[in-house]
């Protein structure tokens, strides 16, 4: 039964468990990568003739190189704790979108070729041969996982389906069956330096436009420097921040914060991308190559600190992996963690009292906050565990009067993915994206009904793009999704700006 693109599920509760709809999403596959995109990443251009041997060899290699892969394939007891935790399962009802069932697509093959039980008693333990159909099934369902890690929170062994999805994508890349969206973008980063393929000239022009816009708005000259040697801070931000709404308003917010804090900073045209799609395809080598661009930019520009803009998966790679992939960063100022998140910087400045706000500038907004999955479950901000939840909310509450949290079972470490993460933010998967967003949208509708919430803030480029695309399907305007630093930008009073009514920044929130 082919699913209709417009049949968005109506949930009575964000986490309502659907009836199983076997095969509901079976036919959905993203476009396959063209040979040129594959080869640029070091993968075969198209499906190799001996793909089966190559796939099994890759699987053996992964079991040698990655403990998570090995342990997670062995340890699952099929208890079922994860079965109702994936937003794609909740949104589609397809049982193969249950985390354990998604893992089993690969585990069944691993068992068949690499375990005693699977070799000699395949039907007993659910082991199966690797066939063309299995490969197609992998291509479908490993591109219906956004690697958001929600399942890993609830698994008694911490089994993270994201790790299995990444491994499966790595295997598919190795046999020449990569995904167009992710692989084409990684190629662009290697050629030009960012996901958009925005060249340095165009980038410089964009930043100049933004400077003019800020000056028109505020009467204050706020700079957005590019490739300035000797600046203290290198800001690495997702390239969506240079052109997309509401991302760009966030970028304006960062610039204003830096301006008021009186620090010198710069963007880099060489490392003009925070997102690292190498993560999505599970490729350590590609992820490393992209991460090394940031190191090189930092060295070339002679900066002392690196700060990342609002971006979820980027922050995961930055916070958790950058030191591994491109470290050690002993050439930077040891007083600061490497890297820092822009929200860590802004919250720090707020605490120091260097920023002045007029919170009433956000009074037209009643706000909630969407914890972006990879920030929530794969990173941290600040010194304490859980800082990734508190710091964004602290900043929001410092600049907004009306703030309301969504149902606790859908926030913090239990947050729901926006539905477009992990390399799925592509139009060929729009049906999945709309359905996968339904649990989050239902949670949002609840706070809208209860508190009149009008807007949702996020700190991830993918979340922002995804929500601006799918929110209209759920009865919200596309600009109902906002950047956190957009709110900061709205409320901040720049030194010398007219209408400075000197609100205290430590005023408590009205909510």
């Amino acid at each position: 039964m082919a699913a209709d693109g417009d049949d968005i599920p109506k949930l009575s509760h964000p986490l309502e468990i659907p009836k199983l709809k076997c095969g509901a999403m079976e036919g959905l596959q993203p476009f396959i990568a063209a040979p040129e995109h594959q080869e640029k990443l070091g993968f075969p251009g198209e499906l190799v003739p001996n793909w089966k041997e190559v796939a099994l060899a890759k699987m053996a290699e992964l079991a040698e190189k990655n403990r998570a892969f090995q342990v997670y394939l062995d340890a699952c007891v099929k208890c079922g704790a994860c079965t109702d935790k994936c937003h794609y399962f909740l949104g589609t009802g397809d049982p193969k979108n249950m985390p354990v069932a998604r893992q089993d697509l690969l585990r069944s093959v691993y068992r068949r070729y690499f375990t005693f039980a699977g070799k000699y008693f395949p039907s007993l333990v659910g082991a199966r041969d690797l066939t063309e159909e299995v490969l197609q099934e992998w291509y479908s369902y490993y591109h219906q996982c956004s690697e958001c890690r929600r399942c890993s929170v609830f698994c008694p062994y911490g089994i993270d389906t994201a790790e299995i999805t990444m491994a499966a994508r790595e295997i598919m890349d190795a046999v020449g069956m990569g995904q167009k969206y992710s692989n084409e973008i990684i190629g662009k980063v290697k050629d030009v330096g960012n996901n958009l393929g925005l060249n340095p000239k165009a980038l410089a022009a964009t930043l100049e436009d933004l400077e003019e816009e800020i000056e028109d708005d505020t009467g204050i000259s706020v700079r957005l420097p590019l490739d300035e040697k000797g600046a203290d801070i290198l800001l690495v931000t997702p390239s969506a921040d240079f052109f997309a709404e509401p991302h760009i308003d966030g970028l304006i917010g960062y610039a204003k914060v830096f301006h008021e804090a009186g620090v010198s900073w710069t963007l880099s045209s060489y490392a003009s991308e925070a997102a690292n799609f190498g993560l999505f395809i599970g490729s350590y080598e590609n992820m490393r190559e992209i991460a090394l661009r940031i190191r090189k930019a930092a060295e070339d520009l002679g900066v002392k600190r690196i700060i990342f803009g609002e971006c979820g998966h980027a922050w995961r790679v930055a916070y958790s992996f950058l030191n591994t992939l491109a470290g050690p960063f002993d050439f930077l100022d040891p007083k600061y963690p490497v890297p820092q998140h822009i929200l860590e910087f802004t919250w720090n400045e707020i605490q120091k009292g260097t920023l002045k706000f007029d919170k009433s500038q956000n009074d037209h907004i009643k706000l909630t906050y969407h914890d972006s999955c990879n920030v929530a479950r794969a990173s941290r901000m600040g010194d304490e565990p859980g800082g990734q939840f508190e710091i964004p909310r602290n900043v929001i509450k410092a600049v907004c009067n009306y703030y309301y949290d969504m149902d606790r079972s859908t926030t913090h470490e239990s947050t729901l993915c926006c539905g477009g993460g992990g390399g799925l933010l592509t139009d060929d998967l729009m049906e999945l994206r709309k359905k996968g967003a339904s649990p989050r949208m239902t949670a949002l509708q609840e706070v809208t009904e209860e508190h009149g919430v009008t807007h949702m803030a996020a700190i991830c480029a993918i979340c922002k793009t995804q929500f601006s695309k799918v929110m209209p399907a759920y009865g919200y305007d596309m600009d109902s999704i906002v950047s956190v630093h957009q709110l900061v930008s709205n409320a901040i009073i720049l030194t010398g700006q007219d209408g400075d009514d000197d609100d205290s920044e430590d005023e408590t929130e009205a909510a």
Partner: protein
Amino acid sequence: MLSVIYAILFYVATILLVVGVAMKIRKYARTPAPLKIPTTPAPTTTGGVVLRMFREVVFFESLFKSNKWIWLFGWAFHMGMWLVLIRHIRYFTYDIWWWVQLAQPFGTYASFAMLGGLLGLWARRILVERIRYITNPSDHLMLALLVAIVGSGMMMRFVVHTDILAVKAFMLGLMRLRIETLPGDPILLVHLGAVAVLMIIFPISKLLHAPGVFFSPSRNQVDNPREVRHIAPWAKKLES
């Protein structure tokens, strides 16, 4: 004859269990985790990780967050099992240790928790659509085996007693490489046979979750990637 068969069975089962699990643990320990992937919020110190792991294996913290029914049945089964196992130590030591004595009454009735837990988990496998979907025949067989072990044990404890002193003599004999006479009660033979099967399949089945949980990177890693550089040996080679 029967005694010899069971003696051989237990020697083989013990060797397979010990060697098999040791090999798996060695494999897990030697396979590097190339990246820092703790599920956050995660502890920032090793002490914190020990505490997290303790809560995970003693209280099944994540499972509790996930599903109260699976937690209840799973936790009752596992905790009952520990008490029953402790109680069984008395059959392997000549003098019974004081803390084994102490656990005796608890260990006796813990078998009901074990059985209840197992039957609850089994019912879920049959009644809950999602769990039925992910269940393989081996999952049913594993439950059947465990129910057979617990059921036969309870039979001997509460209904038809076996010559437990003879069983103890047999076990103590095995430990000293002597084969004593094992009583021929069918229930006892089922009990011991099923236990031996469980020992044999341990290293090649999902029972590997027991050692596996300690090697799960999302649970056993310290959240300190900015402070301490984490790098796998194979990844280090990419840098030269």
